[in-house]
């Protein structure tokens, strides 16, 4: 018979390849090699986090590579979060409630 190896099919992308695609897709460049290495680490961590969320999701959501995949959770919170609400929202009573049309 033939000694030809079975075709294993398309191989999965390596992390570095996915990261290169991410940089191209979202126009990211890191000039210093140490910064590139650090962002790659963060990217890998975020992909693992996305996989965890995918497993925990009970709906139809998809988690994965996003424009924020090279940011730490802290950086993301700092850049895109509401720093005031993150420090705590003041307690309040619901004084005004919708009661339907014609309310005072």
């Amino acid at each position: 018979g033939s000694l030809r190896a079975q075709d294993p099919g398309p191989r999965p992308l390596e992390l570095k390849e996915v990261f290169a695609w991410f940089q191209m897709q979202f126009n990211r460049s890191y000039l210093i090699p140490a910064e590139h290495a650090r962002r790659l680490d963060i990217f890998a961590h975020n992909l693992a986090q996305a996989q965890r969320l995918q497993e925990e999701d009970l709906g139809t959501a998809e988690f994965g590579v996003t424009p924020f995949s090279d940011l730490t959770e802290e950086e993301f919170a700092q850049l895109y979060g509401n720093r005031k609400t993150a420090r705590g929202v003041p307690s309040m009573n619901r004084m005004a409630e919708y009661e339907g049309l014609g309310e005072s």
Partner: protein
Amino acid sequence: TPHTCDWRKKTDVISPIKNQKNCACCWAIAAAGNIEALWSIRSKPVEVSVQELLDCNRCGDGCQGGFIWDAFITVLNNSGLASERDYPFQGKVEPHRCLAKKYKKVAWIQDFIMLQEDEQRIAQYLATHGPITVTINKKLLQQYKKGVIKVTPDTCDPRFVDHSVLLVGFGRDKPGEGMPAETVASQSRPRRSLPYWILKNSWGSHWGEEGYFRLHRGSNTCGITKYPLTARVVPPKASLVSCPP
């Protein structure tokens, strides 16, 4: 309350997706979106100045975060808002730069209210009045791509809310929607449809579902019921409006 509601389907009610960039102004963009939608439904389409909300915010630098009610109080204190065209978004705040008096007001509000922590009531109000603002826990959104997020409170704490967005509609996912055909066929029990909220984010149109995302409806996902706020732009006895299904 209708089964589905999507204010994006009504022309000119929902303005284009914005990008807050490095300015923590989700609160101002969500409040502006609420006012724009209500004005479009009740009167005429307008695009209001987010920058005015940031510059004239009574609590200082608007790019450091803020609360939805501060945005509405700023609108009330300044007797309205200028247009985005006259007073465009800069993504940064310089001290003492409030130019509220310089430009003509294109929209104003009567007051603002907080709705009950009840998703059914929120849906009813949304369908009969227009989009409202909500503040949620944004933890899952960093890795979100598409679909309906449904998680337990352990994964997304509903008590910790840190991101304001505009709630623009609700609906139900048909069973099997978005799944490969073989996955649907292999399921022994038919999956129940998944009720969801449609939310407009302010991170650009390249994020999520063209700038939008969906959260499960009925389980207070990520604290969506904690602060449902809306401005009011018409006297209370005005006629009802209806949201396109």
